[in-house]
């Protein structure tokens, strides 16, 4: 039982950063913008969050700082892509390269600095229930926030007028423009939201998952988050599923030794990347399905002639 609880707790901590980043990217992509810079925004969120908690001592300040960091990175992308009509794929790559470099620069003095990790919120009484209490009611605030965001995004996308407009912009920017909606403004907001979410996802790594700063500590999670959005066929519910599935793969990585599996650690570390490829292959095999679900204007530039 104990090992099962430990495994589930590992799944949750491994899934949460992916969930944040993938949810944010989903909203961005739903508006028709493909931001490949998730990795760069996450890693900036990670260092800024860590630095903020180091200097302020407050986890709340750190979380907001990481959101601002991710959003600022996203703003660079947004301006380049939406105002300067830069091509989305190379701009996203540039954002990742820039983010990795800048985070290493900012994090110079942060290497080797210790932090206890953000506090867990024990919900009174029910957190004392064995097993269930430990799994569901003794997590840190960010885990709850990530689950809350799943429902918030789901509600926004499917039940609100603003969500409908966002999807319209992503599916046909010309039609949305003709109806009088400001395509660029809506897309910019979606990009910013994606950045803020990636920022928190990164901060989860440096504040909770392994509370310290290591260069490039996101280790490709931004890219896995991008793959998750494809895996989820741009559906919020499936992002949640996918993130927890990937969390499940990482428990193999951490608990293999405890279970007495004699596989080199490097091979275990390959698993999330190999799983991403496998999942992409399974999902993408059906071309028509991808075509049906992907926002129709995804990655296409928009320039209003007037």
């Amino acid at each position: 039982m104990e090992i099962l609880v430990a495994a589930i707790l590992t799944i949750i901590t491994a899934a949460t950063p992916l969930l944040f980043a993938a949810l944010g990217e989903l909203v961005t992509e739903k508006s028709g913008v493909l931001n490949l810079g998730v990795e760069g925004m996450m890693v900036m969120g990670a260092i800024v969050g860590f630095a903020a908690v180091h200097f302020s001592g407050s986890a709340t300040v750190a979380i907001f700082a990481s959101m601002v960091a991710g959003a600022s990175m996203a703003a660079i992308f947004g301006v380049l892509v939406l105002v300067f009509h830069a091509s989305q794929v190379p701009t996203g790559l540039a954002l990742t390269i820039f983010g990795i470099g800048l985070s290493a620069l900012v994090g110079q003095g942060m290497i080797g600095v210790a932090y206890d990790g953000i506090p867990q919120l024990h919900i009174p009484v029910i957190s004392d229930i064995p097993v269930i209490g430990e799994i569901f009611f003794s997590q840190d605030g960010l885990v709850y926030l990530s689950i809350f965001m799943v429902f918030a995004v789901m509600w926004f996308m499917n039940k609100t007028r603003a969500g409908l407009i966002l999807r319209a912009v992503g599916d046909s920017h010309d039609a949305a423009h003709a109806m009088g909606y400001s395509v660029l403004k809506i897309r910019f907001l979606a990009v910013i939201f994606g950045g803020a979410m990636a920022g928190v996802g990164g901060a989860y790594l440096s504040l909770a998952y392994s509370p310290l700063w290591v260069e490039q500590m996101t280790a490709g999670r931004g890219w896995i988050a991008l793959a998750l959005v494809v895996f989820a066929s741009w559906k919020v519910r499936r992002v949640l599923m996918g993130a927890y599935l990937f969390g499940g793969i990482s428990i193999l990585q951490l608990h293999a030794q405890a279970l007495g599996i004699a596989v080199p650690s490097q091979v275990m570390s390959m698993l999330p990347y190999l799983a991403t490829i496998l999942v992409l292959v399974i999902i993408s095999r059906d071309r028509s399905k991808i075509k049906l679900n992907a926002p129709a204007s995804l990655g296409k530039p928009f320039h209003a002639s007037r």
Partner: protein
Amino acid sequence: MLPRLIKRQAPSKAMVFLSPILALLLTLLASVVLFLIMGVSPSAALHAFFVEPISSIYGLTELMVKATPLILIGVALSLGFRAGVWNIGAEGQLILGGIFGGSTALFFYEKTGFYIIPLILIMGIIGGMLWAGIVAFLKTRFNANEILTSLMLSYVAALLLNLLIHGPLKDPDGFNFPESRLFSDSALLPILYDGTRLHLGAVIALFFVGIGWILLSRTLLGYQIKVMGDAPAAGEHAGFSHSKIIWTTLLISGGAAGLAGAIEVSGPIGQLLPNISPGYGFAAIIVAYVGRLHPLGVLFAALLLALSYLGGETAQMKLNLPVAVTGVFQGLLLFFLLACDVLIQYKIRTSKKSESTFAPAVKSSIKSTSEVK
């Protein structure tokens, strides 16, 4: 009134060439700001970054040593990018080339023979092609996005190298350090200029620029690549096979990256280490763009990016600046380039001066009509 972008009738040829220069100037300007924030004298930093590394013969040869892998990969990636095939996992293909080439060198440890070096290079190419071939297979057979698969495979490649270095390829007399034996002399690329590290790879890279140029401008394949990138529908109508272009461009870029990896391990490094590339595979993406996806442009861009690596090292030694500055510089350069590229397709139009002589009422009416339009 804000400046507005007006679409040009035809793309500006002049801006294609001016944009990288403008981007470089803006990057330098931004670097000055960055250095000021970091509390370093900008003139000293810029001198350490861009002048000092190339103010000696040795420096110039080092520049070429660093530029060699960037040229090889940059030229090859340009072909793919032109065709709309986004291989961004060249880093992984380079590592595979290093593994294949390096294993070959270790296999012929303490043996001599003229065939060893060619074999190392060929094995490197095969290693890189194998890694890129997986991407091409998954793309053409299963429609899997090549950006994500090639990138994921880069992480796998790095772990694979790490695994091998800790295991079968570890130096048996190396006190358990994670590195291979030093290659024998017969497995090391010949040095072109005594007292430096300038090796045969530089010649291969320059040769590759020529091949890339001919391929792109003089062959049917080059034509097909350009058509498939600019107008895929037209290309398919003409009977060009999309999957053939995907396979070809990926194999070329994978092979070139693998060759670069083999050259690195049998040239400047001389053994297998856990880390054989400071991100050449990613920097080559920037090289390809700054070089306007043209082999000759790539040559210059590769020298510029090589200088950013060298400069980063010098600035670290002289001014105690973190090496990470190099990454920031590279990222900024690509940002500014992408922003400046807007001027290829668009021109900037601000409100004309003559308007200011109009009476305010007339002016506002002009403004409102222009908005109605």
